[in-house]
């Protein structure tokens, strides 16, 4: 579904340049749930920006379903780090903004927005502003807004950080449900190893450095199986991901 081929990406920081990606390649199949994990500053958000079309690779090509990505795409939804909600809009207005921006007629999006609000359990707070919501509610608003666009690709940048443990687990369950139910392709960034193994059908461990490298790729076929969190395999996968991250840290200090 997604083909990233020979991509370079460079940020200009004043006079100096930061080469985040150099000849980077990645293939993502339809229906996969990719999790990106790696130390802060290694380029996870940058990769999502590239996939969303908000940033263009300096060289190379990104194709989604055969089409080159040039700018944002109708069926890609992107939940930015820190949610990206608009503080001046109510929950209901935030959720419907994507459809409004796309010039959907109000009559036709109203029911869809209402359905999403109910599904995410936001009915009680739909006239509140984001500053009046808990972290978990805000995250559900961001999710609702993304899903109203009926995307085939959902990009999420650390959507569940800054939530308490129980809310986090509940929302992890919700994400898993959405992924299985809608046959979405998702790419999620997280700093939590547990979350990576719980949500990712394939986990990419990134390591910073100029440029970023993929130090490990773990396929996780049992993802989504009920009770997976309590199994031996789950434990093994998390230890493995952890060891890759730690080994990355060692390499770093040896340099």
């Amino acid at each position, binding site marked *: 579904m997604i083909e990233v081929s020979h991509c370079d990406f460079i940020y200009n920081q004043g006079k100096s340049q930061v080469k985040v990606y150099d000849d980077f390649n990645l293939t993502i199949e339809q229906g996969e749930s990719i999790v990106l994990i790696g130390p802060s500053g290694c380029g996870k958000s940058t990769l999502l920006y590239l996939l969303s079309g908000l940033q263009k690779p300096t060289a190379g090509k990104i194709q989604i379903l055969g089409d080159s990505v040039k700018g944002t795409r109708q069926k890609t*939804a992107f939940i930015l780090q820190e949610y990206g909600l608009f503080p001046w809009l109510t929950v209901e207005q935030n959720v419907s*903004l994507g459809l409004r921006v*796309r010039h959907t007629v109000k009559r036709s999006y109203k029911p869809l927005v209402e359905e999403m609000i109910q599904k995410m359990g936001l009915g009680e707070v739909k006239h509140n*502003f984001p500053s009046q919501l808990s972290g978990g509610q805000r995250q559900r608003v961001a999710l609702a807004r993304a899903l109203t*666009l009926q995307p085939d690709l959902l990009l999420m940048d650390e959507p569940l950080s800054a939530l308490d443990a129980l809310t986090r687990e509940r929302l992890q369950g919700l994400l898993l449900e959405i992924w299985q139910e809608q046959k979405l392709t998702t790419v999620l960034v997280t700093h939590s190893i547990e979350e990576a193994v719980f949500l990712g059908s394939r986990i990419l461990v990134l390591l910073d450095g100029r440029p970023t490298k993929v130090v490990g790729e773990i396929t996780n076929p049992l993802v989504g199986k009920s009770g997976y969190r309590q199994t031996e395999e789950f434990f093994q996968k998390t230890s493995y991901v952890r060891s890759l991250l730690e080994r990355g840290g060692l390499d770093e200090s040896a340099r």
Partner: protein
Amino acid sequence: MNLQGKVFQGKSWGYLGAIVFLLALWQYAAWSLQTPLLPTPQAAIAATIRLLEADLGKHFWVSTYRVVLSTLTAFLIGLPLGIIMGYEDRIDRFLAPLVYITYPIPKIVFLPLILLFLGLGDGSKIFLITFIVFFQILVTTRDAVRKVQSETISSLRSLGGNRFQVYRYVLLPASLPDVFTSLRLSMGTAIAVLFFAESFATTEGLGYFIMDSWSRAAPDEMFAGIIMMALLGVGLFIVVDFFDNIFCRWQHLNGYKEGK
């Protein structure tokens, strides 16, 4: 009573308290100074009522018209231009030096020129106030837009928003709270400039009325003019607050909570 009603009631008590306080202070000053230059509040209020039946009302409306029209014009030009300058670096690079050079010049020095071209009527006064207030609104708006985080803009773009929609859905609402603050500050400036502009070469407006009473040595009438000017200021602030509460409701949520 609903929440807004309660907030409104709270505000009315605040105004009443302020008025009582100022009147008491005034009364005390008038008693202790015992000078014909400072009339008692009773004398001034009596004069206000008497003069409203004559032509004080007309002067009040002329002044109101001048301030409102010029502030509105400054707002309607300064707001869009400020937003554009805040977002489009290329335009800002070109216009910012122009603004920085002209902003600090006291615009009043242009008055002879303005009078020459626009004459002695409303036009010159409205132009002068607009000219001064415009810069305040422009600079505040531009700086407010610059504070908008790039993630917020990316967020709209990721929803499929185009350039125009970035203005409509992000830059405008994000800058409005600061714009209202600058409007409030501008009101003070506008009234000060109004007074100056009305104090010569005209026979209409509160500025004229106050200066004329002064030259006629009629302090109670002069204070009637000052009272009307204060009312004009308060009225404008209330109007700005009213629109602020409508358009920036998200900024005033704590206020509403306290009102419960």
